[in-house]
């Protein structure tokens, strides 16, 4: 059952081939048996999941089912779930049980989906290897010494290991696409404003966007159908009709104009990776797409601009974790300053502290113009690069990451080496564009991702092209050893 896609499970439930309780129990058992190695879940909601499954079975037999009724999935532990611990991968929120649901959470509840649990992640979504989680690192199912990528490493690893058919995730600089690439799964970061951020714990508000991780483009489309909604509680959410993303999956891509940014095929890119990406592009060409080279001249500025803007926003967003109202509070504070200092020193990990410090510095008096304002100007240039590119092409394609999954601790003590992991993904966040990573080949037995970047609100096209690619290839069906 765990090898079935969401679409197949949905049909199987509707046809009565199995019940949601059976299905849910199957996945819960798999998690219990296998996640001790992978560590992709922070919280498993065994009792709640079975209760939801039972309710779903009743709805199905009463004929009140939606495509998601009774289908199990998991939430990244960044989405608030009423009554269920939402830690954001941090000691700071180890004791936090939200009294409310994120909009994404309630969207899934309304559809009758069954939440298996909350997936592991880099602390406050800051990281590209899932090594910064308070709950321990996540192991990539493709190799016991390999990172799954981050920050949605738990979601990507759980989907790759068939511990859940699909999972929610978030992407601030590549946190959906990069782990999807490293774990050989399909991930989509929607246009900024497509998915409500309400109840999704903020890292960098102007960049954060929730999206799905699944095994196929079709499943990602089913996920996005639920996740995307207009929400008055998020002022940056855009009021725009949500199409049925599954409706256009089978459109031909004949005549589609695809741009390859020459900056994405630089010496940053591993030679074997380059070959795999080229093969995937040839595949798209066979499907009728026209391929042309384009330029995104400010790509190399995206990492430095991002590492000013994201820390600046996080330095303010994380001020609320002060030990006063919820979350970690130090023992016996002797005064207010001691309460703040020790609660935050104890509650946050190294990478989070580093980014708060960098952000506070970039915003401080006398440095604002040189850093934050300059970074915003660069952001505008990067956005203009894409706007210009989309005048000539329908879609941009390239690698998701410079290399396949790397080993634990391999980026050493140099945080900037880790930051370069996001070189190909960050610019879409800065521009607010939708981006997707799909399995596009293998290098040395490890999956590599093909990245597709669309114009604003062009998620349907991304999913359509990905689905057509997946109809012609079987990279997305490759599974890690022992996971089938």
């Amino acid at each position: 059952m765990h090898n079935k896609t969401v679409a197949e499970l949905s049909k199987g439930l509707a046809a009565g081939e199995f019940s949601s309780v059976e299905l849910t129990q199957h996945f819960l058992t798999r998690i219990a048996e296998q996640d001790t190695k992978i560590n992709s879940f922070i919280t498993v909601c065994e009792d709640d999941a079975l209760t939801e499954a039972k309710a779903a079975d009743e709805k199905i037999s009463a004929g009140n089912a939606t495509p998601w009724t009774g289908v199990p999935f998991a939430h990244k532990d960044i989405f608030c779930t009423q009554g269920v611990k939402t830690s954001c991968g941090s000691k700071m929120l180890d004791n936090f049980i939200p009294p409310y649901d994120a909009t994404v959470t309630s969207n899934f509840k309304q559809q009758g989906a069954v939440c298996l649990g909350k997936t592991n992640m880099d602390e406050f979504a800051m990281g590209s290897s899932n090594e910064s989680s308070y709950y321990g690192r996540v192991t990539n199912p493709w190799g016991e010494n390999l990172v799954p990528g981050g920050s949605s490493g738990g979601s990507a690893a759980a989907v790759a290991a068939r511990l859940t058919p699909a999972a929610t995730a978030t992407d601030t600089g590549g946190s959906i696409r990069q782990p999807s690439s490293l774990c050989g799964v399909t991930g989509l970061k929607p246009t900024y404003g497509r998915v409500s951020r309400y109840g999704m714990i903020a890292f960098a508000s102007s960049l954060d966007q929730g999206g799905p991780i699944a095994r196929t483009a079709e499943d990602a489309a089913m996920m996005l159908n639920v996740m995307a909604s207009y929400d008055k509680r998020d002022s940056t959410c855009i009021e725009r009709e949500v199409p049925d993303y599954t409706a256009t999956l089978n459109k031909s891509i004949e005549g589609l104009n695809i741009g390859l940014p020459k900056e994405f095929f630089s010496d940053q890119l591993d030679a074997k990776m380059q070959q795999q990406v080229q093969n995937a592009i040839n595949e798209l060409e066979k499907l009728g797409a026209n391929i042309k080279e384009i330029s995104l001249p400010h790509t190399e500025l995206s990492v430095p601009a991002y590492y000013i803007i994201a820390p600046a926003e996080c330095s303010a967003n994380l001020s609320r974790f002060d030990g006063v109202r919820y979350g970690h509070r130090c023992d016996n504070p002797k005064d207010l300053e001691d309460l703040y200092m020790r609660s935050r020193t104890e509650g946050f990990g190294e990478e989070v502290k580093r980014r708060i410090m960098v952000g506070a510095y970039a915003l401080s008096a006398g440095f604002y113009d040189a850093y934050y304002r300059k970074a915003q100007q660069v952001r505008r240039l990067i956005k203009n690069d894409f706007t210009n590119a989309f005048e000539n092409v329908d879609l941009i394609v390239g690698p998701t990451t410079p290399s396949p999954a790397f080993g634990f601790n391999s980026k050493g003590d140099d945080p900037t080496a880790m930051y370069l992991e996001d070189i190909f993904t960050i610019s879409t966040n800065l521009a607010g564009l939708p981006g997707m990573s799909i399995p596009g080949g293998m290098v040395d037995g490890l999956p590599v991702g093909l990245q597709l970047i669309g114009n604003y609100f062009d998620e349907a096209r991304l999913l359509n092209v990905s689905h057509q690619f997946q109809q012609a290839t079987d990279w997305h069906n490759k599974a890690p050893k022992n996971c089938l």
Partner: protein
Amino acid sequence: MQWETVIGLEIHAQLTTQSKIFSGSSTTFGAEPNTQASAVDLAMPGTLPVPNEEAFRKAIMFGLAIDADINKRSVFDRKNYFYPDLPKGYQTTQLDHPIVGAGHVEIQLKDGSKKSIRIHHAHLEEDAGKSLHEDFHGMSGIDLNRAGTPLIEIVTEPDMNTAEEAVAFAKKLHGLVSSIGICDGEMSQGSLRFDVNISIRPVGEEKLGTRTETKNLNSFRFMEKAIAHEVERQIELIEDGGEVKQETRLYDGEKDISRSMRSKEEANDYRYFPCPDLLPVVFDDDYIEAIRKTLPELPDVRQARFIEQLGLSEYDAGILSAENTMAIFFEATAKTCNDAKLAANWIMGELSARLNSEDKSISGIELKAEQLGTLISRIKDGTVSSSGAKKVFDALWSGEDNNVDKIIDAKGLKQVSDTGALEAIVDEVLAGMTDQIEQYKAADDKKRKKLMGGFMGPLMKASKGQGNPKLFNQILAKKLNN
């Protein structure tokens, strides 16, 4: 040396919206602690602000009322600092793109002169909660009911030179914001709070001196005292060879002392940056014009009307038009008695004195405008004398009774205006005052006026105070001059 004082004000006015500026929680004053604080107000993880359109409407109303430029694009910024009653660790405010740009407010001084005070800008922001340091056994309590209440912060240019000007401006602004209904003006509840920036410089000097800021003055009286105190402190400091430090000071109005709260060096680096959770807010001309149509009569317009239509002096009209409650009370009184000048005299005399001595405002008293108007009518038609009317006023004020005529009857204040009856009293009294009559008749005109008064006392006594003095006078004059 002659010193010139330079004063600028920063005013925080709570806007009278039903709900908070970025959440749906109620803004009602005085609720149990933390009963009006939602997940958004508590800054729970993942919660987001949603702007309240009513706050923007009220800010724009203010801008239109001071003839200011309305910025069609305004941006919210985060002002970062840690404090337990600031749940997010930053205040959402407007730094570079405030909603209201430059404007001006005219003030009138006691000597009748006028001055225009320029407003630098006014911006929208959220209020913080309250820290409570008593009753928690060495700990502090936090009440977040106020957190997120919409404020408009109004910043003046340093255009005032005396405490009188600053207080006149503060009163004018109080009248303005309450008249247009954007703020309830309840200073004791913190609805309107004044920070005063003060510096001094030698007369004739162009360059401004170093300023201090005295925070959170919540009455006009304390504001006046605080300014006098601070000016004196600065002059003494400089004349003793010291210099003024840029700092924030706290003033204790009860003890008339002030102390430094924090110096410029200790001030936070607020690390302002545009709030990424809120998009820039954009208005078009139609939106602004539609709000302009909802503006009620402004105090200045009302003052002109009181002068032209009701014949009041400029000074009286200024005072009676400044506040909505006062203006409404005055107009209702004048309408009831059909005599604007008498109504103005009573309100600015007896009523104002009483309000001042008991530290009350029009909205908090028993006396109704219609009652005062009726009382004035009774004076005009001779039913009650001026001195009797004061007794009726006392009864109305204390709430002893609310019917003017009943009070007059019950207290026996009704004047006897029946000339026959009065004449009989005069005859009776005069019969026992033959000596005085002789004196009167022998006196010249000038002396006669004085002597006339000698008959009034016994007449009033004989009539038990109820005789109409005017009529007594007429009858008396007729009889004595025959």
